[in-house]
């Protein structure tokens, strides 16, 4: 029998949702200040308007539900999944008001792409967008990469017992520090240190490459936010190709690779445990999968004979691959070039890399390297078990911040999530094929959306069918939250309707 959620459950969800929505409204003051600094009056009104709508909804919920009991597991999951939908709708308001989107759906697409650190975009005439709107696009990535809930835990919510459940609902399973709020604050500390370092490097590189200092700073800041959070938005429509700069490409590669590493690994390095870098199952698997997929890309590109010279292969082939594998989506080629020149083998390499994604508890999306590593070790264990006497017990170990014994339950749950991702990727691909796109391109774009990468082969455009836009939004949302919170939300809605 399914139990119908009580009014008290809805109140708990509404209360925390209200707080998160107010937090989102406060966040819009950052682009608002940018708009005022650069005398962008209409964009300033856009952000003021969107912030006020957020405050109205947030305070309306809080005036209905002034107090709440603590969150349980289900509440946390529902709050996490709903907060991302509300963030999309509210974040889309200033984008839509900018006049650079043909309808609110397209603006919502970009807002979800921003928060989910995907990078696919439907914006028109990006090169004439105001600084404040552009900062907002990148800020959404910065916030979404850390996690909207992580922000709330850090700045707005104090001492809530159920904090861990919404934290997990946002696809973060590991507590780096004993307390989840301390963990959230550590994530922000690391990000702010890299923000200063990354923005300084990119600003310097921009000036060296001929940009004016203020423009270089703003572009450096935006590029950092999208690189560190493995997002993929860029301030100009040509993405990274705009700069024609090897130096900026190198800096962004470093930033998005570091951003795709587990925050636990950052903590280990922070506390002097450097050996973790080459002992951890994630970094080892990352290296192996990178080499395998790079081999595919190189073989594919050699077959088409597109690029001559190692440096060209590095700047066009390796860059796209690492960008895809880390879940970033920065591009140094035109999206049409994937179709016209890369060939199926190189495309396959990129699709596999995108599908795998970065490390767990990082800003990256996709299946996650840890799960690939665990399933591979489980596979090895099974082979060893088959080759040993029946009475023999095989113990498979792996190193992930400490020596761990591989449990069957770990392998099973990792395999289940991998299966869920594969189905999500195929689902989007089938819909793409239904609308008449070739299978390899439909799969490419679907994996890019589902794994929150943002590389595009050209399907994502203003002209694409409305249903496909909705499907990609769903894939970005599902992929970012890693299914659990979304499933719980669906279960909760089902219980509301059918429960007794």
């Amino acid at each position, binding site marked *: 029998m399914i139990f119908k959620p009580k009014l008290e459950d809805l109140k708990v969800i509404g209360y925390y949702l209200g707080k998160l929505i107010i937090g989102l409204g406060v966040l819009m003051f950052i682009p608002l200040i940018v708009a005022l600094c650069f005398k*962008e*009056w*209409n964009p300033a*009104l*856009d952000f*003021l*308007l969107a912030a*006020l*709508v957020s*405050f*109205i909804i947030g*305070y*309306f919920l*809080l*005036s209905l539900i*002034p*107090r709440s009991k603590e969150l349980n597991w289900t509440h946390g999951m529902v709050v996490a999944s709903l907060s991302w939908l509300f963030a999309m709708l509210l974040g889309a308001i200033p984008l839509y*008001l900018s006049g650079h989107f043909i309808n609110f759906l397209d603006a919502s697409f970009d807002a979800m792409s921003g928060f989910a650190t995907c990078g696919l975009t439907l914006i028109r005439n990006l*090169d*004439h*967008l*105001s*600084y404040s709107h552009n900062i907002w696009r990148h800020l959404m990535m910065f916030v979404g990469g850390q996690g909207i809930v992580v922000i709330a835990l850090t700045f707005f919510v104090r001492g809530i017992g159920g904090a861990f459940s919404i934290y997990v609902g946002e696809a973060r399973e590991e507590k780096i520090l004993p307390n989840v709020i301390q963990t959230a604050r550590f994530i922000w500390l690391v990000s702010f240190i890299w923000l200063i370092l990354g923005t300084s490097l990119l600003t310097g590189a921009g000036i060296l*490459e*001929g*940009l*004016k200092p203020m*423009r270089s700073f703003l572009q450096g800041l935006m590029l950092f936010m999208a690189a560190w959070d493995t997002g993929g938005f860029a301030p*100009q*429509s*040509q993405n990274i*190709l*705009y*700069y*024609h700069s*090897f130096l900026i490409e190198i800096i962004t590669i470093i930033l998005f690779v570091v951003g795709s590493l587990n925050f636990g690994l950052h903590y280990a390095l922070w506390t002097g445990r450097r050996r973790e870098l080459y002992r951890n199952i994630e970094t080892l698997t990352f290296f192996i999968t990178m080499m395998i997929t790079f081999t595919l890309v190189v073989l594919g590109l050699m077959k088409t004979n*597109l*690029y*001559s*010279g190692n*440096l*060209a*292969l*590095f*700047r*066009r082939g390796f860059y796209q691959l690492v960008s895809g594998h880390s879940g970033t989506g920065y591009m*140094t*080629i*035109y999206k*049409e*070039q994937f179709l*016209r*020149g890369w060939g199926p083998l190189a495309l396959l390499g990129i699709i596999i890399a995108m599908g795998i994604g970065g490390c767990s508890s990082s800003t990256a999306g996709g299946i996650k390297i840890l799960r690939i590593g665990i399933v591979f070790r489980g596979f090895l264990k099974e082979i060893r078990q088959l080759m040993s006497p029946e009475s023999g017990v095989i113990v498979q170990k792996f190193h992930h911040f400490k020596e761990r014994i591989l449990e069957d339950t770990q392998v099973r749950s990792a395999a289940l999530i991998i299966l869920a991702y594969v189905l999500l990727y195929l689902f989007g691909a089938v819909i793409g094929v239904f609308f008449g796109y070739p299978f390899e391109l439909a799969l490419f774009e679907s994996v890019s959306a589902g794994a929150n990468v943002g590389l595009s082969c050209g399907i994502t455009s203003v002209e694409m069918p409305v249903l496909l836009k909705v499907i990609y939004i769903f894939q970005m949302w599902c992929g970012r939250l890693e299914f659990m919170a979304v499933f719980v939300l669906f279960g909760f809605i089902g219980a509301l309707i059918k429960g007794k």
Partner: protein
Amino acid sequence: MFKKRVLQLFFICLFLAIFSSSLCAEGVSSMELIRNAEKYNGETVTYEGEVIGDVMCRGEYGWINVSDGESVIGIWCKREDLEKIKFAGSYKTKGDKVRISGIFNRCCSQHQGGLDIHAQELEVVESGREIVHSLNMKKAQLVGILAIAALGFLLLSILRNSSLKESSEPPSSSPD
């Protein structure tokens, strides 16, 4: 009869010549170049569009990015050509419209595989200008209405919270 045929042929040739020359003058679009990169690779093309973003000088040469409304292509030009550009397109400016004649590269060997045009000639065909964005009064009015509504809900939330606090507080005991 023969004279008539010759005359017909002459007019057809004349029409074709005028038509093809008008095509050359218009140049090719960015999407045409990107989609048919193999066909245009190494050819001299004429490309026209608005300079957007930044003029990036790199020694004797430098980069501009030129948008024709469909896509944007990077142009590698001489510094003296770059100095002709006064406006680059952004939120507050419409960039100079330039016509470039140069070599199109599908995978430029000088720039490690980039798709670009190496300009031989650059001409500013239309000067850019500053864009004046007048304040949208409808938006401003809406902001005013929403601000009052938000303030109302904020007060309501504070009142509800304080009334709940009062009701949950234990009655204070008198000193005597």
